[in-house]
């Protein structure tokens, strides 16, 4: 075949092929973009996608229309997630150790690239001291700061990776807090070989939270016999969203049930203004297992104020705890159910009203501040509660 085809003919074939590839490529995506209907929400990116921009003389002249159009066509581009996956794959094939948002660790671990603001951390430790003082002597205030996977799973980081000095930050917190402090560094490090952090998400696992709970109670081992229940083995977390790659294995989410606990623990979620917004039968919100954001299974995600009915046992009688927290607390709080009459979780990002008053209204006897160390160094909301 090729032998009989003249050189000129082969050049012709080559040119036809190239011209076809090029035109089909650019026209193909154009037509697909026009034909496919717009998506309103991206699960992968957990955000609303851009809509077609408003067109008017004003938006065109100011350049807003063209900027909006660019965002719109990018957001609505066909196979957007697959192209993202192609890019991540190519970067990893080229030996890149990060993509600007996450570090590619060993054993499928993805570590979010973060910074640690030491000055803000110092301020926040001070604010927490102030809040504890304002609570008064009748309320037992405690602090627990969680190191992240980047610190505890250092061995799985790519070589020479420069990460924030969580060790130094945690040491600072330990030395400067006036609250009862639980240092989790040794506890979590002892269990570093176990599944205590998600591979594709920035949170700790329920098992990690269980070890922390034991350490907080001062018990080397669980007093209760929990049964681990797998609730999802298809969890692709936040770090996966930053480095979409089809070859990455999903995480599994477990909850820990105490078969000896006969009681129900219904949960009420309140808006910042005190209005009741949602009521659930338990601390777990099954609806989130159907969407990408599966970690919100615990405590139904981020909410201003969450009230949970605890235990009616004698041991729990009169014990009411307020947890001032970030989302690391969400899989921790279920372990408190049998220890307290009532648990109130407060997210200071959404709740700016008087924290001391909230504690008094609810007859709170204990407060636990529970943050991961990077959040504690980042948070700009503690100041409002300290005022």
């Amino acid at each position, binding site marked *: 075949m090729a032998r009989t085809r003249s050189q000129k003919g082969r*050049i012709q074939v080559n040119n036809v092929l190239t011209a076809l590839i090029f035109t089909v490529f*650019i026209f193909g*995506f154009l037509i697909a973009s026009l034909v496919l209907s717009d998506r309103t929400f991206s699960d992968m990116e957990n955000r609303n996608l851009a809509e077609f921009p408003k067109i008017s003389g004003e938006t065109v002249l100011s350049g807003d229309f063209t900027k909006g159009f660019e*965002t719109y066509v990018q957001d609505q581009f066909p196979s957007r997630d697959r*192209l993202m996956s192609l890019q991540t794959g190519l970067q990893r094939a080229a030996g890149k*150790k990060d993509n600007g948002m996450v570090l590619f660790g060993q054993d499928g671990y993805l570590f979010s690239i973060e910074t640690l603001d030491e000055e803000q951390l110092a301020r926040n430790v001070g604010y927490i001291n102030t809040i504890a003082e304002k609570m008064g002597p009748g309320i037992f205030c405690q602090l627990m700061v969680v190191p992240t996977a980047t610190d505890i799973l250092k061995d799985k980081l790519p*070589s020479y990776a420069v990460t924030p000095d969580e060790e130094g930050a945690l040491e600072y917190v330990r030395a400067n807090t006036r609250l009862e402090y639980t240092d989790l560094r040794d506890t979590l490090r002892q269990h570093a070989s176990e599944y205590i952090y998600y591979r594709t998400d920035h949170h700790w696992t329920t098992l990690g939270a269980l070890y922390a709970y034991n350490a907080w109670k001062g018990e080397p081992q669980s007093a209760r016999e929990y049964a681990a229940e797998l609730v999802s083995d298809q969890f692709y977390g936040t770090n996966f969203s930053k480095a979409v790659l089809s070859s990455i294995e999903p995480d599994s989410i477990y909850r820990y049930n105490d078969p000896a606990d006969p009681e129900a623990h219904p949960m009420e979620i309140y808006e910042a203004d005190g209005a009741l917004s949602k009521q659930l039968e338990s601390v777990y919100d099954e609806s989130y297992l159907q969407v990408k954001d599966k970690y919100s299974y615990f405590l139904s995600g981020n909410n201003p104020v969450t009230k949970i009915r605890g235990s009616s046992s004698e041991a729990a009688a009169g014990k009411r705890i307020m947890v001032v927290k970030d989302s690391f607390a969400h899989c921790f709080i279920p372990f408190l159910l049998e220890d307290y009459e009532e648990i109130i979780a407060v997210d200071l990002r959404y709740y700016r009203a008087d924290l001391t008053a909230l504690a008094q209204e609810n007859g709170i006897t204990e407060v636990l501040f529970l943050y991961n160390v990077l959040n504690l160094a980042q948070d700009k909301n503690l100041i409002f509660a300290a005022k």
Partner: protein
Amino acid sequence: MVFSSISFLFYFLPIALGLYFLAPGKIKNLVLLIASLFFYAWGEPAYVLLMIVSIFLNYGAGRLIAARRNRISLSLGIAANLLILGFFKYADFLTGTLNSLFSLGLPELDLPLPIGISFYTFQAMSYLVDLYRKDAKLQTNLIDFAAYIAMFPQLIAGPIVRLRSIEDKLHSRTHTLNGFARGARRFAVGLGKKVLIANNIGAVWDQVSASDLTQLPVLTAWIGIAAFTLQLYFDFSGYSDMAIGLGKMFGFDFPENFRHPYESRSITEFWRRWHITLGSWFREYVYIPLGGNKKGLKRQLLNIFIVWMLTGLWHGASWNFVLWGLFFGVFLLLEKVWLLKRLEKIPRVLTHLYAIVIVMISWVIFSIEEPGSIAAYLKAMFGFGGGLADTGSLYLLTSNLILFIIAAVGCTHFPAALGRFLIKDRERGKHSRIDESELGVSGIGVILQNLWTLALLLASTGFIIASTYNPFLYFRF
């Protein structure tokens, strides 16, 4: 609009190409003009009027020069162009400098720079001078002339195309499948250079240049400036490739702008290989009119300084660009009077090293605006910063090693040579050229070349989309 955007690649380009090829021959230039004005207005909705003014102005100036044939009419035309360029590009630079020297408190205009103004005014001026010298014919067809000034492929980042070099094709050109295919291949290569290499290696430079320059270890400093060196080449030559490729699709042959500049063995050679159309513009329209090398050594030295100060200033309205131009001026002078002959006698590898190190140092001046920071960076490169290396430098090196190797090999002539070797028709051996432009191609070559083009397009699209990937994370909460 930039070439490496979704709106250009998958909206503007298919629609513009479709309309252009559907249009009958007589109105193809009109379609090209409208497409170009739309392309420009997309990014610069207000400044497209400035471009239209510039088109009419130069069209008129051309008629005046052709009618009067005197220096006054030429001077008027050039002055008008320089006035536009000066007002929109250099006004604030001038008032800023005067204010800081004499504390005059002149108000600043704060005008955003019209994209491509340096390129299209230089093209227009070259037409006026060529017309005056009778190197170019008077353009009487306003549509054709406007299409030349506004032509979107080379509008934003060159090459600077002189009208006389495309004059015949501007008025009548043929469109061949061969031209289209070669243009498409060239465009895909350019896109890959920009999106796959320049953008990624540029991220390394961004990271290094954003850190504390006074504490920079030697290794990090060199990694950083090596990254910028490669970024600039792949960005700029990638744009030129895309422009040349698009030109071929529309039936034009634009001049080459880069010929593997980092292979140079002297600065003199570097400037014959880097941004060739700008270098020849300054030679043709500034250096030679000033007398070039024909009025004695002293005058030649002065001319070199003038040309290189202007070359620096052309790159941006800031003193570091002037400094950068003069830096090259000094080395070009040095080579002319003394160094070039010495360089011929020392081992090749040392001459390569000399040229690339000088060029890299020049990019430090080029890329950092503030003189104190330039000094800090240069100090760091030569060991007066923060030690030899730290964990951060080793991380940057190991994480980007393959990218650096690809880029370093990619800026030499090897990839093109390898490509020719892989696709060449072995049955006919070396002499399978059918004409100058067409190399013979083997059966496997057909497959390789097309897969390569498709892979470049697909990977580039992946990286463009990824750069817009914007996961909103219920942050750490």
